[in-house]
């Protein structure tokens, strides 16, 4: 893994970073409809990709760091420190706040690399791979349903579930964090398109409902 040791001045480094949808931040704010649907970017979350057989010793060691590895599609695991999403039978994505990253004084990546050791599998720092959108409000599900073929009804898609799918033809992870709040993880290069797509999808809820 590339050396990501703590630089001399993390604040300088942090100030120089631009998140993939930072240029849309004012548009997200003006496009959000208070009390109905809101969109914002949560930049720079720490994300670590894990590939390991969850029934192996290395899988058990990694699970002890992440607070368990999810068993099946849609499941998540973890604690307040980090959330682990199921991507495949042997593939997981650990999502943690920005401060958990090693370059900002955290130890998540190093702890996972050490847990894997020399066993078969991989632990890769993917923090720059995806960004995070938070879509919330009573109309959040309606916005998503315009471009996502999954059954998003609460009886099928419960809070605390994360699925890999397509939203507006963009491959993304969709994580339902609460009854009316979703986190979407698109890859960085799709963030601009998906951000604008979501804004467009939200626009009708700014107008009075036509009876």
């Amino acid at each position, binding site marked *: 893994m590339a050396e990501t040791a703590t630089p001399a001045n993390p604040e300088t480094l942090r100030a120089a970073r631009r998140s993939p949808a930072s240029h849309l931040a004012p548009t997200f704010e003006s496009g959000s409809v208070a009390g109905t649907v809101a969109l914002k970017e949560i930049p720079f979350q720490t994300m670590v990709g894990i590939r390991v057989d969850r029934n192996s010793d290395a899988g058990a060691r990694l699970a002890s760091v992440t607070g368990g590895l999810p068993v099946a*599609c849609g499941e998540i695991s973890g604690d307040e420190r980090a959330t682990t999403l199921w*991507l*495949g039978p042997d593939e997981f994505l650990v999502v943690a706040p920005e401060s958990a990253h090693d370059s900002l004084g955290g130890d998540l990546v190093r702890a996972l690399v050490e847990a894997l050791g020399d066993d078969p599998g991989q632990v890769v720092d993917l923090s720059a791979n995806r960004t995070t959108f938070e879509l919330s409000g009573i109309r959040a599900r309606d916005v998503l349903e315009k471009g996502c*073929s999954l059954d998003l009804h609460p009886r099928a898609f419960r809070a605390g579930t994360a699925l*890999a*799918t397509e939203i507006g*033809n963009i491959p993304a992870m969709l994580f339902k964090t609460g009854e009316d709040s979703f986190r979407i993880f698109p890859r960085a290069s799709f963030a601009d398109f998906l951000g604008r797509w979501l804004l467009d999808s939200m626009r009708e809820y700014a107008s009075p409902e036509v009876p």
Partner: protein
Amino acid sequence: MLLISCPNCGPRDETEFHYGGQAHVAYPENPDALTDRQWAEYLFYRDNTKGAFAERWVHSTGCRQWFNMLRDTVSYDIQAIYKMGQPRPDMERADVNTSAATTPEGATK
């Protein structure tokens, strides 16, 4: 659009998947011993079945795992979905000729 039941993720839209061609085309045991003709047949020659056809699919937008599917090429009816490495479910039926598993070109059309 097909609704395909991924063995890991459940029913998803066809757009989440990619097609991987005919299933059960075994790699030749001794490729060096093949003639150019036989090698070309292994690489490029595939069945063009009318009816039940075993094919490979990958859930590329979801779990990124490969699986096999038995699909009717006329009605698009998905008859079976089974794991990689498992034999074709209707192999034992006498009315299905699946000699294609080893010799793609030799299969009766």
